[in-house]
């Protein structure tokens, strides 16, 4: 899809296309920053100290395949782990926003 088309779709579908661009960006950045913390925590938390060192070694090589292999071997269902964390995040966010707006 052409760049401009993707860009327009995102902004429109966000439902914030009438807001100033800075506001649009703030919402996305806020959400992603929060989920970034969760993802980082949940992935690294699932590894032992020894495994975290191994992860550093794997990432040092610059080989994405090795990093992938590392996660597959050491974090059972790691994509699912993230999927669940994101799902939990979304659920928590929806609940919190509902609560804030309903207060």
């Amino acid at each position: 899809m052409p760049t401009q088309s993707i860009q327009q779709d995102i902004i429109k579908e966000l439902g914030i296309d009438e807001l100033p661009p800075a506001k649009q960006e703030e919402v996305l950045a806020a959400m992603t920053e929060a989920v970034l913390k969760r993802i980082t925590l949940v992935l690294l938390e699932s590894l032992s100290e020894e495994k975290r060192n191994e992860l550093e070694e794997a990432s040092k090589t610059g080989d994405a395949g090795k990093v992938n292999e590392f996660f597959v071997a050491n974090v059972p269902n790691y994509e699912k782990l993230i999927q669940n964390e994101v799902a939990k995040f979304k659920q928590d966010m929806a609940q919190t926003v509902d609560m804030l707006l309903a207060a």
Partner: protein
Amino acid sequence: MLNLNKRCWRTPPVLAFNFYLKTMAEELPKHIQSAEELGYDPGVIKPEDFNKKGLAEKLVEIEEWKDIEPQERARRGESAVAGSPEALRGPSRASVAPERVETPTNLEIARREFIDVWSQDQQAGKASGKLAKLKGFFSLGEKRVQKKEEIAAATLEKGQAEESLAVKQKDWAKAFKEKQKNLLEGKKQELVGSGKTQEEIDKLVNEYAKELVAEAAKEAALVDGLKSDKQIEEMGAWRKGLNEKVGNFMDWYKKLPLKGRMAVSAGLLTVGAAGALAGGVPGAMVMSAAFAGQAGLRVLGGALTAGGLEQLMKGAQQRSAEKRIVKEFGDKSSEALEEDSKLEEKMVGLAQAKKGDKAKRFILAGTAGALVGSGALGYAIRNVADWIKGPSMGTPVASSEQPGIAKAAAEKLPIGERGPGGAIIDYFKANPEAAKKFGWDGQADINKWSGAKAHNLWLEHSGQALKNPETLAELKKLGYSANAEGYAKMMHRIGEGFVELNPKSGMNLADMDYLKAYFGDADKVIEEVKKSGEITGDALKKLVTENVKPELFKDGDYLALKDKVSLETLLKDFPESVTDNKYGLANKWHGFGGQEAFSGDRYGNMTYNGAQKLSALAKFARQLVDKKLVPSEDMAKTVGQFFEKYGK
């Protein structure tokens, strides 16, 4: 700040440099002393610190520490050493804090108190949970009484913490609402004084109200981030490594400009996004590059696994180091640097040699790069982006017809150990406001109502699903009848999946993964082997291969156990009472305190879904054993060895 004599910079470079070192050595104790008065902890200063490298490091450290606002230091209650993640990390002010004021606002106070109480509630929950899990082991005499008392105390504490949490959450929401109300009122007043008609004012206020939805979303994200911060803070010393990694990563992330943060979080650096980050391309373009797709992330992310990110950070740190030099010596340094390029190199080199910079760069690049390389973070962010742009969050303030985040709630719930119905019931019980959208009157017992509603939603869904050719094909593949009963039975084989809930369209199942698809149909294998007349290893291997999907051998839970657990052990850990009773596994899981029942060396940190898979595998093995299709000696083999012999 060093009070260097301007004269020294006009002398020949080498002499000037020596004089600079001497002056720094004289000035350093004064710097440390003044910083100590503000709460700085210099740690142990060794004699070898008083060389050019050590002096530069220490000065830079003190200046960095001073850069952290006193108010922020006081808020954290720490005398942190500059440069440490603890010192640099704070709430996500850069991107999500609405504003910064000298005196904390009511909202900031309420938010902080809520986080503190939330943390206490978490701690109380853990304590209560741990004791509850132990209760079964203390059944006699004084120990039992003592343990009961401890459990009662922990339960009471948990109850009190929950009450406090509810109060503080309410206060926080009220403070947020109050702030938004004031903003809206201020906007109205501003418009009233502008000479506009009431209709124009209403229209403008309505538009402005949309921004309040955005504010609520930002507030929710901010508090979620603060909760994560709190979790990091409260980790024990043994988690220091994790603490540092997360802290460094987030510190780096927060220091990026907005467009940089968006690039990182929206796709964590495709090449396009990385280029945009370095070149200062507008945020929207960064976003479009970041949405290029998972395949792009995987391929391009590899190039950035360590090197790409490190280069970016190195550049940023070098600029930061240069700034520190300028700050340290003011105009005098500029003058001197113009006079002698070698001196410039030395100065920049000194600042860059700051202990930890290299390590920090590596850690950041390593952690972030690892996540990029795996595609995992990209996957997560893509999901969040999909969600934000979809109709999944928030209730409208001004209009129920607003698109995107302002649309009415439609949820995607992960299916847990209690199946789709349990996921729906739990969701309604935890979200009364959402329950109202599905018809709860706010009066009836929500526990009973949730159960009945979940049942009705299921019946409606089941009727529709059985008209779907894909569902019928799945039922056939897994050996279930193509009717409501068969469909309900198939639910007990859910490995992973989601319930989609929508007030208008009801429920649907999405992204389903049924366990039998992994482990094949043991009955079918047995039946086929019987038909063959003679049971041979080869025949069994052929049929197992045909009926067990190769995905099994790539599954994380399988890989974690394959070399550790024998078939005998598996059957012992997952007896028939667990595998043949449809609630058996759930009962065992909860009866022994959840995960602990199956954790330890053999299974690691297994999830319930992992246990479901192992349970299915154990049942499969049991049937083969019962029919004497597997020689008894093979039961001592590990699961991996078994499948090597009979199916891989």
